């Protein structure tokens, strides 16, 4: 795909893209972002019901995870076990707060550090694998993590999980407060990833994501950058886990299973895995989806599956791909060659 379709402008190419069409496109994007930001800020006022806040919070949290996976996918690796890091974060944070009686901040930091360390330990080994092999080994890692959470009963409460996890702070007890808390953290995570991707590091990640050899030849330490992305992603998932645990007040192993890992993948594929906007849109679309289908009780799962299938069929480059495609058509006079 054309680089200008990315949300990450290759800084220097700006002068070249200063064509009226592209500028309008950019303006449109800015406008869209502005609308979204304002929408997010006033959301609680528009939908004061706890339920809508609840869903919004779940969306925000899942965005952290999808964006984290996105970072890994940009380096050309698809992980089917990301939920393991989320679970590790959730249980670490819970353990520190409830067993060690540390303040939430410590639990939060623990949720960042511990999954990061795990990723740092296994990353160099597993990231040597590519394609399906990497997907499968991460799948296996996810399963192991879930089994450990299940079987380490004295530590994790086993299948029944841990309940009564306190909120991060008393004033965060109300859904509205937690919504803004989650909004801030999520925004920070997205901002961080954006900064990363639009920096030289991001350039390196995209390079190794596309062709290892060329990147290596140009002096890019492919393996090191991959591990870096993997670790950052793990820490972000830890953050999601911590926020999740202290929001819901209850965690149990099955929440961090294969389906959770797949949701991150689905968010990237359905949203579009070539730009940071993809996973965000993907999560915002997939997490609430069941709520629209709940009315169908027994049929909801069938419809959910159908939606997945249909979206990847009609929008192979993901929703964002489809949208930007449309936008570019409206905003650019010049036909763009290589854009499939």
């Amino acid at each position, binding site marked *: 795909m054309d680089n200008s379709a990315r949300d990450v402008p290759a800084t220097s190419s700006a002068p070249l893209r200063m064509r009226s069409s592209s500028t309008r496109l950019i303006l449109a994007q800015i406008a869209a972002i502005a609308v979204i930001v304002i929408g997010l800020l006033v959301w609680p006022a528009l939908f004061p019901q706890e339920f809508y806040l609840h869903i919004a919070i779940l969306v925000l949290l899942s965005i952290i995870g999808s964006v984290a996976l996105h970072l890994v996918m940009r380096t050309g690796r698809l992980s089917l076990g990301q939920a393991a890091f989320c679970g590790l974060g959730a249980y670490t944070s819970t353990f520190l707060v409830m067993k060690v009686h540390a303040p939430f901040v410590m639990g939060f930091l623990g949720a960042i550090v511990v999954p990061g360390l795990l990723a740092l330990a296994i990353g160099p080994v597993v990231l040597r694998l590519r*394609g399906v092999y990497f997907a499968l080994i991460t799948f296996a890692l996810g399963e192991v993590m879930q089994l450990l959470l299940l079987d380490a009963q004295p530590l994790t409460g086993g299948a029944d999980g841990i309940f009564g996890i306190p909120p991060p702070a008393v004033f965060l007890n109300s859904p509205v407060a937690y919504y803004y808390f989650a909004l801030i953290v999520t925004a920070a995570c997205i901002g961080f990833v954006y900064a990363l991707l639009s920096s030289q590091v991001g350039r390196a990640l995209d390079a190794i994501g596309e062709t290892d050899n060329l990147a290596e030849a140009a002096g890019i330490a492919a393996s090191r950058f991959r591990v870096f992305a993997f670790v950052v992603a793990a820490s972000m998932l830890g953050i999601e886990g911590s926020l999740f645990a202290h929001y819901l007040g209850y965690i149990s192993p099955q929440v961090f299973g294969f389906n959770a890992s797949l949701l991150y993948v689905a968010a990237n594929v359905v949203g579009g895995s070539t730009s940071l906007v993809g996973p965000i849109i993907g999560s915002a679309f997939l997490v609430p989806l069941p709520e629209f289908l709940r009315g169908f009780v027994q049929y909801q799962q069938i419809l959910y599956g159908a939606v997945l299938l249909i979206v990847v069929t009609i929008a192979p480059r993901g929703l964002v791909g489809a949208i930007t495609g449309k936008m570019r058509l409206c905003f650019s006079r010049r036909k763009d060659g290589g854009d499939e």
Partner: protein
Amino acid sequence: MASSLSLVTQIAINGLALSAEYAMIALGFTLLFGILRIVNFAHGSLFMLGAMFTYEFCTVFHLPYFEALLLGALSVAALGLLLERIAYRPFYGRELQGIIATLGLAIMLQYAAVILWGQQPLSISPTPFPAVLHIAGASLPSGQLVIIVIATFLLLAFYYFTRFTKLGLALRVVAEDPEIAQAQGIHLNVVYVATFLTSVLLAALAGGLIGQQYTLTPSMGTDALIKAFIIVILGGLGSVPGSILGSVLLGLGTSTLDTLFGGNIAEVTWFVAIIVLLAVRPSGLLGRSHG
């Protein structure tokens, strides 16, 4: 009866039976990957459908078991023709979308089955093979024996098919290198559809065969899929001999570990084992390592 000898024979027999079941499950899965490069997340669901259709023909329409089994498998294969168009063909060579597509399909099939057959465990009754054989102090349900025999037969037939038939050879060429295959005038689409049908047929047969031994639920495919994963990783993705080796390893291993150490340990052991194996030898025990 509990002499250590009989224990060993029992472990061996259980292991053999499991191996046969696993081989049935894994064969179609690895075939599809070997040739179409598709990780078929719906494989388990097709397995489940095979079992359900067999149940339908056997218990509801009161056909003799083997007719039911065959009819069931053919029905699922026929369904497969449709699925191939809507959920597979658009995604050949597009791994990412393929995963999500087959995943969506898997969910649809599973919960369609929930509506058609309910969530309550069904059983193919009356059990077509009630007898239990006794060998050297160990016992083997005749149903298991049937699975072992048919699995062996199918594997041999499959071997013959790939070695000595035109289509089989075409299959292998395509597996090696689609471009060369095309250059040699092989119609890829024909091979693809043939492969897909074979894979579905095998999955469905496996379902119907294994189904007569156990209970049938719409979610029975999930476990089968995970087993298939483990097996192909052990043996090597896309390698048919590998998948057989993997099945035997997993079968005998599970039987031994479960008997001597119990379920939890066994399960963790397997995943740790495949992680280590993948780390040191990604292509599995018999897989072709490709750059």
